[in-house]
Structures are given as C-alpha cells and as structure tokens.
C-alpha cells in the first residue's frame, strides 16, 4: 500500500447533522407508511391508544426537526467558519465535466478512475440535487397537506400553500406525490450506501468509517498541502499517467 495520510475530513457538526437527517427521515418514512396504510394496531376498543394521533404527531415533530437540520446544514455550508463547503458539495462545472468519465467507469466502459478527496461527480451532480429536490418537495407538499398551525407559529393555510395543490393538480394528487417521496428515499439510500461501500473497498480510504470518525485515509499525493490554505490544492493535471 502506498503512502497514506489520515486527514480530518469531516467536521463533527456535519457528521451529527448527517446522522440526525438519517434518523429523522427514517422515522418520517416509517410513520408516513403507517399514515398511508395503518399496518398494525395497539390497544383495544375498551382501552384505546391514540395510535394514529401519536404517529401523526411524531411525523410532524420529525418534519420540524428535518426542516431545521436541513436549514442549518445549508446555512453552514455557506457561512460556517470551520468548513464552508458549498464549493465541494453540489454540482459545479468541473463536476459536470468529469461526470461522463465517472459514469463510464461505473458502467465498465473504462478501467481507471480519478481519486476524489471529497465527493465524487456522481454524488455532486446527481445525488445531491436529488436530495435538495427531495427536501423541497417534502417540505412544500408537507406544509400544504398539513393545514394547521405548525411549529414556530407558522400556520400553513390554504392561502399560503394552496398554490402547491395547483402545481400538482389537486390535494389528492399532492398527497400521492408526498407519498412517492418514501420510495425516492428508499432508492436514494440504496444507491448512496452502495456507492459508499464500493468506494470504501475500492480506494481503501476508510470512506465508510469516516462518516462516523470524520477521518479519511487519503493517499499522500492527493492530500492537501500541509499548512496551505484550503484553496491551494495540488493541481491534478500536473500528474499524468496512472498511479501505480
């Protein structure tokens, strides 16, 4: 194995936010599936448990936590003093240029790939936009369907969110679209986890573990220059040929 350095790649705040989102969306998916079709019951008619009420309450609480978490994550990626990473996360021209190459590697059309110290182009140009669209849809359709006083005193009246129903073609159809999100989430997780496993085992750089520890084992030549500012990374173009 060639020379590696352990790099503190992910700030613990970002890890915390990531796993908060994972937990919260999982609960949202479970409670949402229950609201869609109640698949178990508790209590008896003599001694009823307000099951649906509690499940819906949980769904709304988690929705509020999700909105807060996503808002904090977006805010930090632009304004945080420890890692304002908006340049590295999300689609950029550089990422789009590299996308065909990355995809042809995954489709076995080529055998070599580049090392991406942070997110790779597939993640940045496809998965991250899908995630952002997911949040946007979940929040808008969710608010429109909620129709009551949400947390932070926000009352999601028809005047405020009725236009969402018009966009989707009616309240019932909006509910259908809101329900589709659970399938989008399932497919997203499948791809996301698979690609992380793939990369972790392929590049042997502890990508998977870094989501818990924050540390990634980066080949020394791809590590940022010690002491340099974040922007002064080594230029990839100066290193032609395969790494052996």
């Amino acid at each position: 194995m060639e020379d590696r350095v352990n790099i503190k790649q992910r700030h613990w705040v970002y890890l915390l936010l990531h796993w908060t989102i994972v937990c919260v969306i999982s609960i949202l998916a479970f409670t949402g599936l229950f609201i869609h079709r109640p698949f178990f019951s508790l209590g008896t008619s003599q001694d009823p448990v307000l099951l649906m009420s509690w499940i819906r309450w949980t769904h709304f609480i988690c929705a509020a936590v999700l909105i807060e978490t996503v808002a904090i994550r977006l805010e930090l990626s632009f304004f945080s003093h420890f890692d304002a990473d908006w340049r590295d996360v999300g689609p950029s021209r550089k990422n789009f240029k590299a996308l065909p190459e990355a995809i042809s590697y995954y489709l076995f059309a080529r055998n070599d790939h580049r090392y991406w110290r942070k997110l790779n182009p597939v993640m940045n140009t496809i998965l991250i936009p899908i995630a952002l669209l997911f949040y946007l849809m979940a929040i808008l359709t969710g608010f429109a369907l909620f129709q009551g006083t949400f947390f932070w005193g926000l009352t999601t009246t028809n005047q405020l969110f009725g236009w969402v129903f018009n966009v989707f073609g009616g309240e019932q159809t909006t509910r259908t679209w809101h329900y589709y999100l659970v399938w989008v989430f399932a497919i997203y997780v499948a791809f996301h986890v698979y690609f992380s496993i793939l990369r972790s085992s392929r590049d042997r750089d502890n990508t998977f573990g870094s989501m818990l520890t924050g540390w990634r084992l980066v080949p020394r030549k791809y590590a940022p220059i010690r002491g340099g500012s974040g922007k002064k990374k080594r230029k990839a173009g100066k290193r032609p040929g395969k790494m052996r």
Partner: protein
Amino acid sequence: MYQTAGVSLEEALIEESIMHYDVSRRDFLKLCGGTAAMLGLSQAWIPQIASALEQAAKRPPVIWLSFQSCSGCFESLAKADYPDVATIVLDIISLNYQEVIMAAAGTQSEKNLDDTVAAGGYITIVEGAIATGIPEAMMVGGKTSEEIVGEVTANGAATIAVGTCAAYGGVQAMNPNPTGAKGVSDVISTPVINIPGCPSNPDTMVSTITYYLLYKEAPKLDSKGRPKFAFSQKVHDNCDRRAHFDSGEYVEEFGGEEEAKNYCLYKMGCKGPETHSPCPLTLWNSKQNWCIGSGNGCIGCMEPDFWDEFAGFYDTLPNVPVPGFIGVKTSTDYIGSTLVTATMTGIGIHAIATAAKGRFKENDDISEGSDD
C-alpha cells in the same frame, strides 16, 4: 287561500305555502335557524332570515338550466317528501324555467325563457356540464349548451352552478372526456357560485339562495368558487368516526367485525381527509344519514376532478396513470415497490460485475489524480 287583514299579498303567499305544507310558523323559524347556523350567523339573525324569505315572496325569478346531468341535483332540492325550507324556497322563488317540472312545452317554454331573460334581474341556476368538445351532444331548442348559458347568464343578477357537473364538469368530464364537458365558470366570464356535490346538498343550496336574498350579493367563495360558509372544513374534520381514526381503529374489510363497530373507513378508501364539504353536519335525506353513516367511505364528490383524482374509490391512495402506458392505471404501492425492486436488482448485478472485475480489491486503477 289563507289571508288575514293587514297582510300584504307577498306575505300571504309565503304564509300560504307554509300552511299548504302544514308547517307551523314555529317550524318555519326553526328551519330558518338551521339555515342561520349553516351560514355561521347567530340566532339573532333568524327574524331577518325569515323576513328575507318572506320578502322574497316578491318572487325573484329563477331560470334553472339543465345540461349534461342526471337531474339528481334538482331532485335533491325538490325532494317533496318533507316540507322543509327547500320546498318553501322553491315556492318562494319564481321558477320560470325548469325543464323537469315546468308545465309549458315547446315554443311556450322558449318564450318563458326569453321573456325572463329580457326582463333581467333573475338568478340563473345551472345544473349539468357544458359540452364544448362535441357541442351537438347537448342542445336544447336548436342551441348548444354553451350558447344558452352564455346568453342567459349575461343578463342575470347572479349565477349559481349546482352539482359537480355544472361546477367542474362532473363524471362526463372523466378522462378522456369525449364531449369536452366543462364547468360553467370555464365557459362564461361573469362570476359563478359553485355548489358542487353529486348531488349537491339541499341545505347548502338553500343557504346560498337565502344568503343571496338576505345580502343581495354572493357569499365569500373559496379558491374553487364554493361558498366558504359551507366548504371551509373537511369531511374528516367533523366526521363522527374521527375518534376511531385517531385511535387507529379501522374497518379492515367490508362485512368484517370492525364494520359492525362503525370503525373509521380510512383503509376502505375514505377520501374524507381530502374533501371539503359540510356533509357530516348537514347530513342527507332530510337529515337521516349520510355516506359514511351508511358504511361507505366518502368518495370526495364535492371536489373538482374527483372522478379521476380520487378513483379507485376503495384504496387509501387512488390509482395513478403509469407513465408511457396510456390508459393504464395502477397503485402507487405497486409503482414504488417495482422501482425499488428494480433498483436493488440493478445494484446486485452491478455488485457482481464489480466483484468479477476485481474492483472490490485493493485499488490500482486511480488515474491522473485528485481533482476535488
């Protein structure tokens, strides 16, 4: 003929109809009280409502146009088995043109219509959808429905579309909508009060007419043109089975033991959570019962596009069109689980191929360099 000294002819007329149907003045005021409650007015308004109805003995002319419909909405209003406000209002208003019940026929009926239109100041009530795609599908007296509704509403004081057909097109507007059926508000530019429902609820119709007689203007309408006093709440908000919904107690199958316990019909496809209507409060058939009370879920008959948007009526989520297959519909669960299965299969195949290529092993295939 019931008449007392000092009573005007108009008041005598309403008194007469009250007597005719054997309704005491006290009953009449009680019924006015029901209308007041529906309109969200306090009991202090009852005398005004009664007087508005009595004043209306000046008989505001009403033209009732029937187009693509089953006449169910008129039946709903005119059900004569019980002398209620609806019956009295029908006697109060001067129904100058109504194809189902008018005595006149042929040119005489056309003349009644033309005279009323020429005089102006009438209320137009439209029942049934307007055929715009195949105009010949709906013609009366050699004129298309679109022509008639345009001519008649232009000179009227107010236009009320009763029933989901007149309001939004109704069942004949179901995809692919061969006759191009449309609601009244889609074909005329003057304001329309929509009172949807299949059929529309007599209490809502009467309350709306009373409101108009009382205030001489249309009630406040929601974004779908419906009076807010009746349509601002959902069936689900006022349903008497709501406690079972909250407790997670559902009818699992028709004929099952849960059905006997009057549990919530959500799992049997009740669309009450998406339907704005006063049904749980007004009930049907002279306040005897209503859809959910009779054991069938709400099908959302007061919502636009319910015929497409809410079908299948017995699923929690309606079936949706399959992209790329015109006319084919399936459940959202089926689409979702198929996509997830396809994804997992794809990932499985990719993982096998990746392993076969040896890519899961120690890397030796990084090219060029880091580019992040």
